[in-house]
């Protein structure tokens, strides 16, 4: 139903739209990071498309060390995915782009906060969780993690079990009783065998 949206994008932006597909019924356009802001403002302001509801923005990490599922070869490790919806026209679109090299260098995008104010917090969350900085964001700081936290947890290279406590833990001596997990409560205890081994999980903190 919204093939029309993809066609309009292709005819208007041509080269900037790297690829479009409609798997599982979701219309997706993979765009060039440099044209991210231009396409977004077009989608929002064009009377025929009128995407006025910013549904969701998230970062998906495809490091080469994990040989992620992404089909076509694209430059950039972190994929920023934006979902939009139009209340009037009742159609949806997903806009994706790939930023950042293998060590997340140069993972930057233009901020869309002035196009949709709703993306203000979502961009802060993508910065906090995935490490993509947004140029021109009014106050880009961590939203879910505490300011003293180093690293971006949703990156595949960040081990799940590594905590950075703010308050020093009580030791067994001071508590007068055992308060640490008893062995053999392993790090992946209870997890199914089929899960993919985390190649980077050398030492888990």
């Amino acid at each position, binding site marked *: 139903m919204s093939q029309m949206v993809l066609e309009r994008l292709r005819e208007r932006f041509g080269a900037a739209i790297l690829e479009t597909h409609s798997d599982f019924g979701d219309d997706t356009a993979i765009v060039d990071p440099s044209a991210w802001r231009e396409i977004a403002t077009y989608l929002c302001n064009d009377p025929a498309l009128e995407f*006025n509801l910013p549904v969701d923005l998230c970062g998906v990490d495809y490091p080469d060390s994990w040989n992620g599922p992404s089909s076509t070869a694209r430059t950039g490790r972190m994929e920023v995915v934006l979902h939009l919806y139009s*209340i009037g026209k009742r159609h949806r679109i997903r806009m994706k782009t790939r930023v950042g090299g293998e060590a997340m260098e140069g993972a930057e995008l233009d901020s869309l906060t002035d196009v949709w104010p709703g993306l203000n*917090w979502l961009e802060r969350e993508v910065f906090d969780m995935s490490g993509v900085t947004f140029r021109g964001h009014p106050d880009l700081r961590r939203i*879910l993690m505490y300011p003293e936290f180093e690293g971006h*947890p949703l990156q595949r290279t960040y081990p799940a079990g590594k905590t950075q406590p703010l308050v020093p833990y009580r030791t067994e001596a001071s508590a007068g009783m055992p308060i640490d997990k008893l062995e053999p409560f392993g790090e992946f205890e209870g997890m199914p065998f089929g*899960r993919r081994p985390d190649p980077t999980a050398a030492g888990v903190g």
Partner: protein
Amino acid sequence: MEPLDLSHENGELELPSEPMHLNMGPSHPAMHGTVRIVLELSGEIITKSDVQIGYLHRGFEKMCERGTWAQVFPYVDRLNYVSPMLNNVGYALAVEKLCGLSVPDRCQWYRMILGELARISDHLTCTGAMAMELGAFTPFLWFVKAREMVWDILEEETGARLTHSFGRIGGMAFPPSRDLRALCSSALPRILEIVEEGEKMLLKNRIFLDRLEGVGPISGADAVSLGWTGPCLRASGIDYDIRKAHPYLKYDEIDFEVPIGTSGDTLDRFLVRLGEIRQSKRIIEQSLERMPSDGPICCDDPRVVLPSKDDVYTTIEATIQHFKLIMEGAKVPKGEVYSYTEAGNGELGFYLVSDGTGTPYRVRVRPPCFQVVGGLSRLIDGRLLSDIVPTFGSLNMIGGECDH
């Protein structure tokens, strides 16, 4: 000696004054324990507010990348923990969209019944807590008593009062129990009685109305550009309900209205939620009649649905199927999908990325109340300090969902 009170035409003699900073901190009765607002006050008026969330960030998306697709259900329960069944149904529909499955009719009706019961308990909790935060403690106790009745039905059906983990990919864990109709037909009228009694006490109370009317208004266009969905958006007059706009399950086969507010202030958000309780009751009654009383509850795709226990203990094929499904998880086809349903606070979306193995590559939840709380500082700037409590209560921020 000059007289002291010279008349100063050229600009007032203004002593330098700084605004007062105040923490409406995480551990505050009205802040649901997980939101901190750093306020800059001049007297009672808020000049600047910085809403800080993340105090209940439990790493939902990182935990989903550890287990199989089916092991995500307990985590999904604890997103919007006031209506866990709606999260279960939302996530199950997302994975089924990725697998290309369709569930039998009986399961679709059953999902709608339990989902609407969860929606009733969500709205009861929100309106009850809002009344309590404004000092009306009795309606809160009545609404919690009404919620106990909903929980009794859910406990009878699923075994757990709150965190049911009752959804499965391709169906539900168990078929409906034999006295579901009796339980619902006797509990729902009593719940409506209690809601009407609470309304009679609140909606004619001058103090309650003055505290809610005209407080924290937002226009429809602003709400849409902020990404608002659900009761808060409908209170501003925008008629967007996913059960009507993009019907899923069997919502297109039953008739119910969508309550719409007019001015988008706190009172409208309160009334929209009360209206939705009645609509949910209508949905449940119609679904109860139309649900077939027998037939499979799960679809019959062996790659996804667990075999029945007696097969597992008797035949080797079922044992292998059971072992592979549990140990390596259901093999969901490679690809990405975004599926959305109408949860208690609005559009609950799941963006799933699968790499073909039994472990999800990425599960992104679109929490509806994250965007709604994002607009909170716009609602309270320039207003009185005491208006924060009803405004924040009407947004129904649920820590588990907002900080996922």
